[in-house]
């Protein structure tokens, strides 16, 4: 087991996070640090607690105990908007998109551009459509001719990019990606993983939650293995092989 030390202070430090649903232990005393310009892969079997851990970080779930420090200061992330204000964005596995809305309304969900008339917040629909279109074009969705398409009719890759565009638009410093390549084809996965590298170069801290251990080996600076709600180790992809990670996921220890 090795650990890559990044010299700077972590942006996010989660300490002793525990969470129970009724009698089921989802998380037990979990520690996790995220630095800027770093990709941390969170791997583990189904039910290992990955989803719960990221939901704690994004304010969607309240831990029973534990502390989260942001820039060294303890902060209670009580709801998703608090996490967003702190620069923590998440892209959930089911993408949390609105199929009944168009691409621009999805990209700007939760931080709409507004114009107040008589105190009533009206949407700036044209401006949002233009900006969303530019953003999506930058992310490489060249097949779309406008951001006014209903999200329901788009491909898995396009939907993923809309979710990425939404997260990026929030001025995120920390981005959580939950199974980002699960619904994507080979070419689309490649585009997305390249994008994740680009985001790291731009200084973002990335928490990549994935089943696909090879993706984690390829991209991550550190791999954190979760099993039964506990951290069972941290690996450096440079100094281990695929089998080590899988051993750890399945057995909870390296032979």
């Amino acid at each position: 087991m090795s650990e890559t030390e990044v010299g700077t202070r972590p942006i996010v430090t989660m300490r002793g996070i525990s969470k129970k649903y009724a009698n089921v232990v989802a998380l037990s005393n979990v520690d996790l640090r995220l630095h800027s310009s770093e990709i941390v892969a969170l791997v583990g079997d189904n039910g290992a607690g990955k989803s719960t851990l990221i939901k704690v970080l994004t304010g969607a779930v309240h831990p029973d105990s534990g502390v989260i420090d942001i820039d060294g200061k303890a902060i209670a992330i009580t709801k998703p908007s608090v996490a967003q204000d702190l620069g923590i964005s998440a892209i959930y596995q089911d993408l949390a998109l609105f199929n009944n809305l168009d691409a621009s309304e999805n990209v700007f969900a939760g931080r709409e551009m507004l114009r107040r008339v008589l105190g009533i917040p009206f949407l700036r629909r044209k401006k949002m459509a233009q900006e969303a279109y530019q953003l999506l074009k930058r992310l490489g969705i060249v097949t779309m001719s406008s951001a006014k398409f209903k999200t329901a009719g788009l491909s898995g890759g396009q939907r993923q990019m809309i979710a990425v565009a939404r997260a990026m638009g929030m001025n995120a410093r920390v981005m959580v990606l939950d199974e980002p390549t699960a619904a994507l084809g080979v070419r689309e996965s490649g585009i997305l993983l390249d994008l994740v590298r680009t985001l790291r170069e731009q200084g973002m801290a990335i928490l990549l939650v994935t089943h696909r251990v090879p993706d984690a080996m390829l991209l991550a600076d550190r791999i954190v293995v979760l099993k039964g709600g506990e951290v069972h180790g941290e690996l450096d992809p440079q100094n281990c092989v695929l089998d080590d990670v899988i051993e750890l996921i399945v057995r909870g220890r390296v032979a």
Partner: protein
Amino acid sequence: MTSQTDLGLVAQDEGAWRRLWAFTRNLLGYRESGIFIALLVIFVALLIISPTFGSRYNLTVVTLQMATIAIMATGQTLVIISGAFDVSQAAVTGFSAMVTGLLAVNAGLNPFLALGIGLGTGALCGAVNGILAARFKLHPIIMTLATAVIFTSLTYVLSHGEPVLNLPGPLLWMGGGSIGPFPASVAIMLLVVAVMQVLLTRTRFGLRVRQVGGNVEAARLTGVNVAAITLGVFIISGLLSALGALIEMGRIGAALPTIGSTLLFPIITSSILGGTLLSGGEGSMVGTLFGAAVLTIINNALVILQVDPYAQGVAQGGLVVAALIIDQFRRRQLTLRDLIRREL
């Protein structure tokens, strides 16, 4: 018709035919176009079949009947878009009408104040529904069915089943008065539809309603206060039910405990005919207006064409079944325009 503006599909050059095709395609793509075409066809057909239908008197009767339904149906449409249902609207109507009538006549309150309190009663009923739906997360249909029984019961406690007659002038104006050549109720209807359409499509609140109805989990994750939105839509629904009550009261000339009791079915039918998706997230106020028009005209035609009154329910029920089938179809294919775009 207002729906989304279009950036993607305007043909740039390539001749008049192509532009005409693009124009037609866009027109057909609006959610409201299907019901509008249906309205047009039925209207023209009735003009040809029956001389009575096109008479000034008959058309006035139709628009007056339509006003109450359309106003209340925009409230129902908003609730359905948010993913819920409000089956207490008819009961709120009776309750608000009786509160207003009793205050103005029996208690001798200033009629304008009585109207205000009547509207407030509707909003309050809506707030009760909203709190039960948002705070306690009760199933909206059964929950509003239960509150409907409560509101109706309170109506009879207040009125002992007696109507209030001899209403003062201001209480009759909304249902019986006119603004220039237009009946006041029709003007109010058009205003309500316009305001509700803008609210739904152009404001942040309207977007929140569509978000909650489209994907409530995603709405929560993006920081939407779902409870506040639910409360808001039920209050608006209650308020519009009270407005419908006051118009109906003016039209009839009396406050009756049963004043809106037959309106629930036409209201929900109007919403569905207008293209409101029953699963939530999608709908249009302008479509709802057209839906109310189609429904009222068909009911009117059944009378004019002297269809056996006992058989009229077959047509009315059949209309809803047809609308539900269209609703099923819409779930797979949102508008014709989306379908065309997908093919390209």
